[in-house]
């Protein structure tokens, strides 16, 4: 038996048009947490797909516990105890937690029928390992996202997983939940003899829990199984992007912020927000910070008219107004919302770059008889597409063929094109590689400097502190406190934490 439970040597994989992997190698030491890093499009996801048997490498070997194996489909991978927890939630929402955990090998009675009591018993065991206090018969759709995540890991364990791949596991978790997750990961590595491949864009996390690091760049190894102690953030970033990272440090003067453009006054919503009071000034960046389920996204959704505001006033430029739909939010009040959920609410994946970027401006630019030609659109949006350096072969490229980073740029571009006064930006950099992330940060600051007021929702504390002028801390659908951001990380972050736990 070798010391590596999983080993890939000199794997090549190309798709029509691109060489996704170029002699990439990867070694996972038994009982270790191994970070797999790289910019989007560096080949991470391809490597993962090979490990999980979704794709087959064109050439190169794959060893499991030192034995060479071939994985023809995900089931093979599962047989070898490899299982993956994806970025998207992959539970059956209408099924019970227990059934989800057991779905691949449902316990049966003598008659070969499903034994639900047994399901409860067995699944309970795995839930306990994850310190999850949920009734196995609870329906998944009623869990919080964080709990769903833990359930997925529990499910992986229930499959006797010895090799666990976590793809951006914390992308929708609050720091606290993330920390809780990490301690659990350490625990299962220790107690269950599991080895973990950890994919993330948040380097803090990598330094937090990983033992070894493999970095891919353009399909090749920038480093292989490097011990974490020999690395620091700077080195790691250079390995990933091939140059040093420019850290955005906002030097904005908050004093020039004056007149209020948007104000919430004792607002109560259908979704359960209580007594929300907020003021947003022109060219201010207001951060909304809070744990999952604190009601931040819900609040802005009520604000733009997707959900109902039941009591209280919304004042825009001092005038009392009722926003009944995103349509009026955009057309009457010039308020825009960049959703956290790119695929669902952000973009139309089956449509092309041009249509996605221009969706917000058709009514603006139409001529007589509603005439809107591609030409007219291109004139309007091309500047923004260029400004954001969207990498696409043509304006007619279908969005789903673009990389995550470029997709995110498009979902931002369409709101820049709309030229809104107030822009609500929800988790702008989740799952975005460092280069694009830095770029988007600069962009947000420029926007604000040029007079746009911005509401920024982010669970990424450093991001929040480097961008926001004021940070509103929410908890349980209420505003717990507001922190003036003097850009001193330690001070501000501890203030925020106080409000969260108060």
């Amino acid at each position, binding site marked *: 038996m070798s010391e590596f439970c999983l080993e890939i040597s000199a794997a090549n994989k190309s798709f029509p048009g691109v060489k996704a992997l170029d002699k990439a190698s990867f070694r996972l030491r038994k009982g270790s947490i191994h970070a797999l890093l790289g910019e989007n499009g560096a080949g991470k996801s391809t490597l993962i797909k090979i490990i999980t048997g979704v794709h087959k490498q064109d050439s190169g070997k794959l060893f499991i516990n030192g034995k060479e194996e071939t994985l023809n489909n995900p089931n093979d991978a599962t047989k070898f105890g490899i299982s993956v927890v994806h970025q998207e939630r992959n539970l059956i929402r209408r099924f019970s937690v227990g059934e989800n955990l057991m779905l691949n090998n449902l316990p049966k009675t003598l008659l070969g029928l499903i034994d639900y009591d047994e399901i409860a018993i067995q699944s309970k065991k795995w839930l306990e390992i994850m310190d999850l206090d949920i009734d196995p018969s609870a329906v998944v759709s009623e869990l919080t996202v964080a709990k769903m995540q833990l359930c997925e890991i529990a499910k992986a364990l229930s499959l006797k997983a010895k090799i666990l791949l976590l793809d951006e596991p914390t992308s929708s978790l609050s720091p606290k939940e993330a920390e809780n997750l990490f301690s659990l990961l350490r625990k299962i590595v220790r107690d269950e003899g599991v080895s973990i491949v950890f994919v993330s864009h948040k380097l803090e996390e990598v330094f937090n829990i990983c033992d070894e690091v493999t970095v891919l760049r353009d399909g090749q190894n920038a480093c292989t199984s490097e011990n974490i102690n020999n690395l620091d953030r700077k080195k790691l970033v250079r390995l990933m992007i091939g140059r040093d990272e420019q850290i955005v440090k906002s030097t904005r003067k908050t004093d020039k912020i004056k007149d209020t453009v948007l104000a919430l006054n004792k607002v109560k919503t259908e979704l359960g927000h209580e007594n929300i009071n907020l003021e947003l000034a022109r060219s201010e960046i207001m951060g909304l910070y809070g744990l999952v389920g604190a009601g931040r996204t819900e609040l802005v959704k009520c604000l733009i008219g997707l959900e109902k505001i039941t009591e209280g006033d919304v004042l825009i430029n001092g005038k009392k107004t009722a926003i009944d739909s995103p349509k009026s939010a955009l057309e009457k009040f010039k308020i825009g919302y960049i959703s956290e959920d790119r695929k669902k609410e952000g973009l139309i994946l089956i*449509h092309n770059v041009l249509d996605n970027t221009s969706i917000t401006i058709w009514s603006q630019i139409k001529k007589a008889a509603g005439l809107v030609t591609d030409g007219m659109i291109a004139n309007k949006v091309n500047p923004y597409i260029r400004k954001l350096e969207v990498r696409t072969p*043509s304006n007619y490229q279908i969005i789903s063929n673009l990389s995550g980073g470029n997709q995110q740029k498009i979902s931002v571009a369409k709101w820049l094109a709309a030229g809104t006064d107030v822009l609500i930006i929800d988790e702008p950099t989740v799952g975005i590689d460092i280069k694009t992330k830095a770029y988007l940060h600069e962009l947000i600051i420029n926007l604000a400097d040029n007079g746009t007021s911005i509401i920024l929702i982010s669970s990424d504390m450093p991001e929040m502190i480097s961008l926001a002028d004021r940070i509103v801390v929410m908890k349980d659908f209420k505003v717990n406190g507001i922190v003036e951001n003097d850009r001193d990380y330690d001070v501000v972050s501890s203030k925020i934490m106080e409000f969260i736990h108060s």
Partner: protein
Amino acid sequence: MKYPMNKKLPNFIFTNQFGLLFLVLIFIIIFSTVTDGFTSRFNIFALSRVIAIDIMIGLAMMVVILTGGLNLALGAIGVCAAMFGGWCMEVLGIPIVPSLLLTLGMGSLLGWVNGIITVKTGVHSFIVTLATMSIYFGFMTMLTEAEAFRRLPDLFTDFGSAKLFNKYVSPLLLVSVATCFTLFYLFRFTDIGRKLIAAGANPEAAEVSGISVSRMFIYCHVLSGFLGALAAILLTTRIGAAIPSMAGQLGMDWLLPAFLAPVIGGTLLSGGKLSVFGTMLGAVLVTLLTNGLYLLDVGEFWIRFFLGIILLLAVLLDRARELLTLKNVIVS
């Protein structure tokens, strides 16, 4: 129009319309060589008229499929509108043009009802229109007692048998083709058209992007009703009377052409992607095949069988084309 459309011409080869055009030509060649009378003036004229109506029916369904829904009540709407129009002309003695406008209005109204119910309840339009189909048709039979309106103005009914271009083509076909171009303009070159498509493709995203999706969906149903009424008008001029059975029991005889044309034409059943000219070609293909099979003497009882087989081949072929073209897509 395949939407979203790629400007580069070579890609036209990979579009659904090209495949259809190809098939249509192939079958025309086959039929005109192996059957007698396919190219006869009478046959071509007859074809042009059937095609005209099937195109219109196809378009009427297409605009609802765009929303990812279906309109089972299409036939019922058509018949109701036609009967209403016939009543206007025969009983009320309203002149032709206003009567036709009223007919179209009735169609749109019934479509609007479908839309409202679908949007307000959020129930899949399949079920909603399944119900309204029975309701509309029931009311129609009840009010008309299944009596046809046959004393329509000659000017109106003659239109259906008028012959153009050296007696080869029916004016009905011109109406349908004109409608195609209008719809093409709507969906390709107007803000409202683009919004309709966006709303159909991804309602959530469209809503967040400031499009009133429910309004768009209602528009689609209204448009469907309107086109359904238009198809019914064409059919009325063609059979010279407004009769309750013109679309069969519950108007369900329309459903097959209604689905075949858009589906073969490359309209996505999940919504957000349509092809006006594809639908047109789809209608042409299906009508061509029926006609050809009748001429081929395959034995009438087997015609359905062969239609089914060919339909299957057509969609499989189209699927193959898609997979082929997917290969030129960049992976990233």
